[in-house]
């Protein structure tokens, strides 16, 4: 798990995303500024000595937004940040899911448009690769596509609210019933009905643009076309599908949204999208997009896969006997300076015992220091050579990792 997390963060850092640490306990008032009613209800809340209300964070995008609008206020936009930490939710339901889970995410704040959207999707795909996930699929949709259809419907506001609710609840039976009661029979109406089946490659965008008659939906399709072509250009087109039905969380997301599914898991492992309104709640309006990786689900998926990632192996095991301790400790420090992973023993050992100890650790090299200027070096599956400690460093750092 730890190795997967490090691999993901390394991938994010290599894209220029700075790692930030946000608190696990926040003032309730702060969290409420960024969360919907449902999410607020699920927070663990408590009071401190003064009686002010606090909560444990249920997700970490809001704390990151506060950081950008607060401490990082003077930093020019766009800002790229990544984070990793626990989130706690009070899931009162039939399925008692774990209350604490681990989320890792990246946020790109201050950049509007398809290029930024494509960047975070590409990063999400690379992260899934870095985590060692195989056979995953990323679905990309757009909130405005559906919003445009809805705005264009000549029905009372209440009906629109009902439609939105039915879609958010994935209740297509109710959706059909509501639409059947409206007397409209336009091409856009048909689009709404075919809602969950609007998936596929670029051809879906073509088909849909023939049917939409409103500006907002058409612009959404154009956005998606650009995102798809940018991703195609990076050779990522194969991992990505268009899903025009992938609208969700209407109060939060505002543009391109995406979800990644992996393995046989019944839930998405990555969720993300554009949320252009959140930052204004903290007094620094800015377009923003990002995603979260549900680390526990990634772990579950990896568990079932045959190719599990091994920990990077230990470079050197440094054993010592008699007067070798001081020299051994120095040798360990030098090896680490060269970026190798070295363990220095805590007790003296004979050469034979040191070999067994080193094999148990899985080290690539055994170094046995027997005096200030005496050492023996043995690579795994190599022969033993006697040479002074300084030269061992030279040999190992010279490429013999």
């Amino acid at each position, binding site marked *: 798990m730890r190795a997967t997390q490090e691999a993901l963060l390394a991938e994010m850092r290599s894209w220029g995303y700075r790692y930030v640490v946000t608190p696990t306990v926040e003032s309730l008032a702060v969290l409420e500024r960024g969360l919907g009613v449902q999410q607020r209800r699920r927070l663990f809340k408590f009071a401190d000595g003064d009686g002010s209300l606090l909560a444990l964070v249920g997700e970490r995008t809001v704390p990151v937004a506060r950081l950008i609008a607060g401490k990082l206020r003077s930093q020019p936009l766009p800002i790229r940040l990544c984070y990793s930490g626990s989130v706690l939710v009070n899931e009162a*339901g039939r399925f008692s899911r774990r209350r604490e889970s681990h989320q890792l995410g990246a946020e790109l704040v201050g950049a509007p448009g398809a290029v930024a959207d494509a960047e975070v999707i590409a990063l999400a795909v690379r992260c899934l690769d870095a985590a060692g996930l195989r056979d995953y*699929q990323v*679905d990309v949709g757009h909130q405005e596509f559906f919003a445009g259809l809805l705005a264009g419907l000549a029905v009372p506001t209440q009906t629109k609210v009902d439609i939105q609710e039915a879609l958010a609840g994935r*209740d*297509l039976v109710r959706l059909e019933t509501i639409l059947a009661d409206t007397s409209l029979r336009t091409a856009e109406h048909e689009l709404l009905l075919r809602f969950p089946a609007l*998936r596929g490659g670029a051809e879906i965008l073509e088909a849909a643009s023939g049917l939409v008659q409103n500006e907002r939906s058409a612009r959404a399709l154009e956005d998606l076309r650009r995102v798809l072509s940018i991703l195609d250009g990076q050779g990522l087109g194969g991992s990505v599908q268009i899903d025009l039905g992938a609208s969700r969380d209407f109060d939060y997301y505002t543009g391109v949204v995406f979800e990644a599914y992996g393995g046989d*898991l*019944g839930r998405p492992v990555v969720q993300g999208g554009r949320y252009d309104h959140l930052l204004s709640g903290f007094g620094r309006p800015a377009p923003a997009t990002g995603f979260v990786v549900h680390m526990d689900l990634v772990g579950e998926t990896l568990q079932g896969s045959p190719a599990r990632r091994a920990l990077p192996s230990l470079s050197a095991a440094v054993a010592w006997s008699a007067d070798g301790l001081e020299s051994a400790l120095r040798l360990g420090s030098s090896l680490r300076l060269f970026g190798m992973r070295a363990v220095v023993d805590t007790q003296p050992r004979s050469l034979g015992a040191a070999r067994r100890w080193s094999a148990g650790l899985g080290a690539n090299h055994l170094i046995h220091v027997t005096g200030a200027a005496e050492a023996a070096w043995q690579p795994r599956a190599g022969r033993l050579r006697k040479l002074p400690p300084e030269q061992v460093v030279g040999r190992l750092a010279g490429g013999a990792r």
Partner: protein
Amino acid sequence: MISLAIPTGALLAGSLELLGRSAVVTLGPEEIGRQLLVERGGIRVILVRPSDVPAYVDHGAADLGIVGKDSLVEFPGSRYELVDLGFGACTMVVATPERSPLGGPSTWPPLLRVATKYPHATATYMRSLGQTAEIVRLHGSVELAPLVGLVDAIVDLSATGTTLRENRLRVVAEVFTSTARLIANQAALKRRSPELQALVARVRAPRA
């Protein structure tokens, strides 16, 4: 292989009939009742308790499920509700003893005591009315509860009203009506879209 969870009980016959009619899979009630899990023609059919169908689908152990709307209301989750299958019609009702002075919601006391197998649906309904209620969760023979003075009223499913009449109960309010629905796991619907859509189309076709 597509897996499909179907419920024991009142909806079983209708489910099997629908699957046979739409040429998804032909199965007799005895065969599935004996084996609980049957694989045939690229379909795996799992027989589980009605209230367990949402769990199988939500967790992805079944791609699709057939289940009453009542179970979907009782167990909220993240599945897709695809098709109203039309059969298994019944109503979730509030019933009181015939001799009780309690009628419609306006006559209910400030704190109503209710027995039900559907505590979540009942709580949601009572909240929507602004009615405070003490909900007693029972696992069977809910009709008995008001007759022996455990509660003032019950919330239960009623198809024909016979059971209620036999126990000298009368319907004083309707909560919602229910029919069998076809539901799908959210990830399965995305990852295996063509297969599932083809099956959904077959189930949908004979009704239209």
